[in-house]
């Protein structure tokens, strides 16, 4: 069952404008928050157990707590560079409720004491950019941004920065590099961005959904927020469901919601006559789950981790039995090869290598040892690089090969897919 903490009014077109947003209690929480002690907000967020909704699931309050107390200017960056294949929730949020994001950001900025924030939106989202920019203008003219917001003495400026098409800019340090006008290559950690980020200043990077979720946390308090979800995965989350379901789309459910319920109830199940084959539960970088595993899966961080996968950005890709897994791995590997920034050698060369191996299998040139080689190369790419893109490429590769080995072996032996009618289309 959907629980709409964030997406309650998303279906109302007027929610997009400042007036419509205010009509539905918009900016009420901001006024409340500005009267609070910033530290209390941070504590509240910590207590709420809100975790980053962008992919890594790091506790937001803890991240905020890493900021050093050295009087340096701080920056808040909103990560709206939604590039994970299968994810489209941030676009929806920005297009339907830009003011919700802005409000969440002002509260967060107030909590961490930042005077300047950027919303980094991926360049392809032309509509979102336009709508958010429009909303920013409205917010400025209404006094929610700028000097002395709502008479609280808190100053804050917000700007939109438009990306230009690089998946890696969704990684927080990659985004910071990109915002600094460089190639979006992730930076070495340590130092972490909370200590030295944008231009060497302390910087907090949060996902759109995380920042929006700060509103209900501050509004109703941590305990109320914790009522939803599980012990360790509190609150609700927007899941983008795509693939072979009858009603793909974005659904907000409490964390811990069973995966099969999400597919069968909210999304209307699979197309008639089709059987579930696999689900990628957290965007293309999450390891795939087989149909049996899906039955046990709950959509929260722990349950999926137990099954060897991850919640990621909450992008559920449902795969039915008409798809060839070798072909899909080819698509995924092509993506990571295309998006590797080229900085670290294992990732730069490894993604290319994996892509070549999978495509040589797909073109009928594969050898049986290539199947093991995929696993071995992937294993040696994991945890060896600056950012997690290398892992993101390796994890699906390993899981696809291990869980659907028969399909790979069939492809190598016969030079064609085991699934009838699922011909590989040359990329």
């Amino acid at each position, binding site marked *: 069952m959907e629980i709409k903490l964030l997406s309650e009014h998303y279906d109302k077109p007027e929610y997009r404008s400042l007036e419509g947003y205010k009509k539905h209690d918009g900016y009420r929480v901001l006024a409340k928050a500005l009267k609070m002690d910033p530290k209390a907000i941070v504590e509240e967020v910590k207590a709420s157990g809100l975790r980053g909704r962008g992919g890594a699931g790091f506790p937001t309050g803890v991240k905020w707590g890493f900021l050093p107390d050295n009087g340096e200017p701080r920056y808040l960056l909103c990560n709206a560079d939604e590039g994970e294949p299968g994810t489209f929730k941030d676009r929806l949020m920005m297009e339907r409720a830009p003011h919700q994001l802005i409000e969440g950001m002002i509260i967060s900025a107030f909590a961490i004491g930042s005077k300047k924030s950027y919303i980094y939106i991926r360049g392809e989202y032309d509509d979102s950019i336009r709508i958010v920019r429009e909303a920013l203008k409205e917010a400025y003219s209404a006094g929610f941004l700028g000097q002395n917001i709502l008479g609280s003495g808190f100053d804050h400026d917000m700007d939109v920065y438009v*990306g230009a*098409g690089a998946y890696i800019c969704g990684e927080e340090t990659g985004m910071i590099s990109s*915002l600094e006008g460089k190639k979006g290559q992730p930076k070495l950690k340590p130092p972490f961005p909370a200590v030295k980020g944008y231009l060497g200043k302390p910087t907090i990077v949060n996902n759109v959904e995380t920042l929006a979720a700060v509103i209900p946390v501050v509004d109703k308090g941590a305990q109320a927020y914790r009522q939803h979800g599980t012990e360790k995965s509190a609150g609700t989350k927007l899941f983008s469901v795509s693939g072979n379901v009858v009603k793909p789309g974005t659904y907000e459910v409490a964390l811990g919601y069973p995966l099969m319920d999400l597919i069968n109830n909210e999304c209307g199940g699979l197309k008639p006559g089709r059987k579930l084959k696999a689900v990628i539960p957290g965007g293309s970088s999450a390891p795939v789950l087989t149909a049996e595993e899906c039955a046990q899966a709950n959509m929260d961080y722990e349950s999926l981790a137990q099954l060897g996968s991850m919640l990621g950005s909450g992008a559920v890709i449902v795969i039915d039995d008409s798809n060839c897994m070798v072909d899909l791995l080819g698509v995924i590997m092509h993506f990571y090869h295309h998006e590797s920034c080229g900085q670290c050698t294992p990732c730069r060369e490894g993604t290319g290598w994996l892509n070549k191996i999978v495509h040589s299998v797909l073109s009928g040139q594969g050898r049986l040892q290539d199947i093991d080689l995929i696993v071995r190369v992937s294993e040696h790419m994991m945890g060896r690089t600056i950012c997690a893109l290398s892992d993101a490429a390796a994890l699906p590769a390993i899981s696809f090969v291990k869980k659907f080995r028969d399909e790979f072996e069939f492809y190598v032996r016969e030079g064609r897919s085991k699934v009838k009618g699922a011909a590989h289309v040359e990329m």
Partner: protein
Amino acid sequence: MADFQLSAEGVEFVKAELKRYETPLSAVIPCLYRVQKENQGWVSPESVSYLSQLMDIPEAHINEVLSFYTMFNREPVGRHHVQVCCNISCAMNGARELTHHLCKSFDVKEGEVSKDGKLTITRVECLGSCGTAPMMQINDRYYENLSPDSAVKIIKELE
């Protein structure tokens, strides 16, 4: 090709962007967008030299940024740049077949400009519209829930 120059407003825009962010380097991406807009959809090497002089940023740096991001075209494109998402959700819903169909229907090779200069069809990675697959982006606009016929129809209706 003649030397590239931005329009007067374009130069103003660049100057404003240079002051807008904490570091002038941040202006590189917005300025490249501007150049692309004023240069028929692509960024030529001449315009990089021009921009480098205008912004006082080394050419190599601008070229690094230019070549890193996929939304900047380093080759001329048609008036309508059709980008079909071929990532996983779209691929499962027939985006690759759609691309082939489009290329065949308009007699243009992938990534190349059609003879009349109207079209360039390319495959791209996830555009964040997986729930409405297959989809394509023509210049800035998204077209979703396509079928081969509707896609052809949409492109045919374009100027």
